[in-house]
């Protein structure tokens, strides 16, 4: 298993605490990313990331096995491509989603302008003619960086708890 994945299996956001203003800014950013995904404002969602950001997902089963990810988008163009798929290149109808993000733990990153967090999420989905159902549950392992005074997502690894994915799993997690 890659060392970086082995380390985060402990899900320890170890490190020093951050000041209240940083905590508020980062928490707001986590919530904004969830809301923009639910509102299908994909280009706005993408703007929350740094140009060199990484966005990837892995099932917990594979996280603790060899680290096989569902996908790993690195950099602005890869994020842009994912957004384009969501906006039209995929033929899969997406139901309305609703993210709930909680259990946010924040610690200082490697520099004064970086922060590490872990948080839990659940995502309900309401497809056409269907009731709201739990679609995904898991954990965000995030790194944030302040660039020109603005906090952005530098890395987001989504650890999906499900061992049997739902048939349509193309939404932004």
């Amino acid at each position, binding site marked *: 298993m*890659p060392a970086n994945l082995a380390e985060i299996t402990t899900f320890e956001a170890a490190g020093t605490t951050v000041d209240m203003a940083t905590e508020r800014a980062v928490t707001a950013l986590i919530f904004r990313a969830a809301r923009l995904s639910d509102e299908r404002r994909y*280009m706005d969602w993408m703007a929350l990331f740094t*140009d060199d950001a990484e966005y*990837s*997902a892995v*099932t917990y*089963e*594979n996280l603790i*096995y*060899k*680290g*096989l*990810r*569902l*996908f*790993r*988008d*690195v*950099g*602005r*163009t*890869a994020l*842009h*491509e994912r*957004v*384009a*798929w969501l*906006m*039209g*290149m*995929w*033929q*899969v*109808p997406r139901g309305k989603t609703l993210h709930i993000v909680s259990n946010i733990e924040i610690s200082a990153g490697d520099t004064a302008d970086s922060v590490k967090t872990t948080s839990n999420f659940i995502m309900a989905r309401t497809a056409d003619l269907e009731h709201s159902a739990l679609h995904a549950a898991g954990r965000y392992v995030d790194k944030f960086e302040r660039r020109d005074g603005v906090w952005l997502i530098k890395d987001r690894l989504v650890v999906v708890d499900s*061992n*049997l*994915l*739902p*048939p*349509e*799993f*193309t939404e932004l997690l």
Partner: protein
Amino acid sequence: MTDVLIEKKNLNDVWGDNALGLDGSRVIDRRIYVDPSIYAAEQEKIFAKTWQWVAHESEIPEFGDYVTATVAGRSIVISRGDAGRISAFLNVCTHRGAVLAAHPRGNSAGSFVCFYHGWCFDAEGKFTAAPLAAAYGENLGKACYDAPPIRHEVFTGNVFVSLDPSIEPLADFLGAAGPSIAVYTGRHVALGRVRWLLKGNWKLWHENFRDNYHPMYTHAAIGANYQGVKIEGLNTDLTGGHSLMAFPFQGNPDARRIMMRNITGKSPEGQVSSHRPPAPNPDVRHNIMAVFPNLDFQFQNSGEGGGFVQTVRPLSIDQAVVEIVVFGEADEPAEAREARLAQFLDGQSAAGKISGDDNEAARRCHLGFGSVAEVRWSNMDRGQDEGRQGGKNDEYSLRSFYDAYKEYMGDSLAI
């Protein structure tokens, strides 16, 4: 040509008398997707009578390692025992019937202990002990208390099982598909699995891997690649229900960038970098090999790099589990391995840029089968050349499946 086919229509074929006026080998009776009696017959006549891919031996490298699989309703353990031996046995305690291994993957440390009353079985499923056994007198020392062994064979690292003790040897069953399996997986290791729920009959998923007519339309990005391109590649019936589609990655390398700009209103700032689906490259031959009844291999050229093995197993008449196993070359450099683990799956799975659409195709078809009473027949007539091979977009592969399907199902289709 249609007139010729009508003349050739085989009235002895269970599907020979169809509303499309085609030979019975060139149509599908949609009742096979929705009829409960056919579904029940498939379990016993196909899934219990064929070789089923269940694991790659690299997934169980150490003593005690095991994986479980479900075949025709039976849970099966595939386990590594003494001297590296691989065993397969029914995952059931012979005492009261509880499954012995409750996880899809694990290590038994050489002993499967039933959680219910503590009966013990070794890594090969043999009964070894029961707690407080004196109360049974002398009656427990019998082979009938072993978890029943299941016929299994390992073919170039791929572990297959069959519930049919008298089934032909695996190499014979695989036939012309065997040499390709050796090339695709012979020097590879499994790197992980992802499984997802399919909302549709299991055959819809397997059919999709025998159908290269759909990608240009179902998968928008691939469709863009192909505009204005003369399509190359072959679609071949390997007999025995197995088939191979082999084709180059063709098309306009800028197509995806153009689509991204058109859809999002913004030009990509850098090189489009997604690993999957790959950019057009005429030097790369993509191979999609389907093995009857529910197994697919996807590899490039001669297996360089890595590839995918997929199975689809029914949960019910209208739901199935698709499982994909990712393979890399055993000795690939660390950097290549890291990249494969990170991005190789990008087009696949329920989250995949390609497979996402395929899941939807199965869902929509199954919904459409609600009209089976009015629209009973599916056309499977693409490719008019005699013989077993035609163009990439033809349906030799699909007809190969249904030739074998009818053979296995026999009179169960005469409903």
